[in-house]
């Protein structure tokens, strides 16, 4: 899994039936310091996150296991809303937003 920040949302009416009702968010992956790291991805969302939230994302086929209908071609799902993550090395600690 990796940390990410939700930066946007994708709307698709024409999609595979198994995916109806599943929100699709645009997530900017973060490194363990909270800095942007790598290309933004699209991920399903099971924790009702909103723009600006820090989340953690499950990658690969395992991402489908968080979904009501697991037999879908999904390779990224937000599985956690992060309030805070600590890094014991030097550098600033990152605070996520509190849960709304």
């Amino acid at each position, binding site marked *: 899994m990796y940390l990410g920040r939700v930066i*946007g949302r994708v709307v698709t009416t024409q999609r*595979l039936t198994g995916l109806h009702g599943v929100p699709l968010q645009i997530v900017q992956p973060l490194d363990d310091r909270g800095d942007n790291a790598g290309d*933004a991805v699209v991920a399903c969302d099971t924790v009702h996150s909103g*723009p600006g939230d820090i989340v953690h994302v499950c990658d690969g086929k395992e991402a489908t296991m968080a979904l009501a209908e697991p037999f879908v*071609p*999904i390779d990224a799902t937000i599985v956690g809303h992060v309030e805070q993550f600590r890094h014991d090395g030097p550098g600033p600690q990152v605070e996520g937003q509190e849960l709304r």
Partner: protein
Amino acid sequence: MFIGKVVGTVVASIKDEKVVSLKLQIVQELDEHNAPRNKYVVAADTIGAGQGDLVLFAQGSSARQTTLTDGRPIDAAIFAVIDSWDVDGKLVYQKEGLEAIGVEPAEV
């Protein structure tokens, strides 16, 4: 998953029999600002996307999670056609022709 644009189609008459009867599209990967990334894939089209459509595609073994691609040597599958997306609260892309279903055109 990534955003992509269907930029071409692959026709291969001699191919593994497990890939026969699958529509293969060339998909140019796009970033969240609708700019092309330097990557493309040949993806199985499970929902009938058209030329020039912006789509979402999955990769890896997840791509086999559809009735069409189950058990087949496929590692990329288109599963949705994009209507619109926004980043940081700003609309980045909206498919033309949505006015017909009551979505007023947005200045993008």
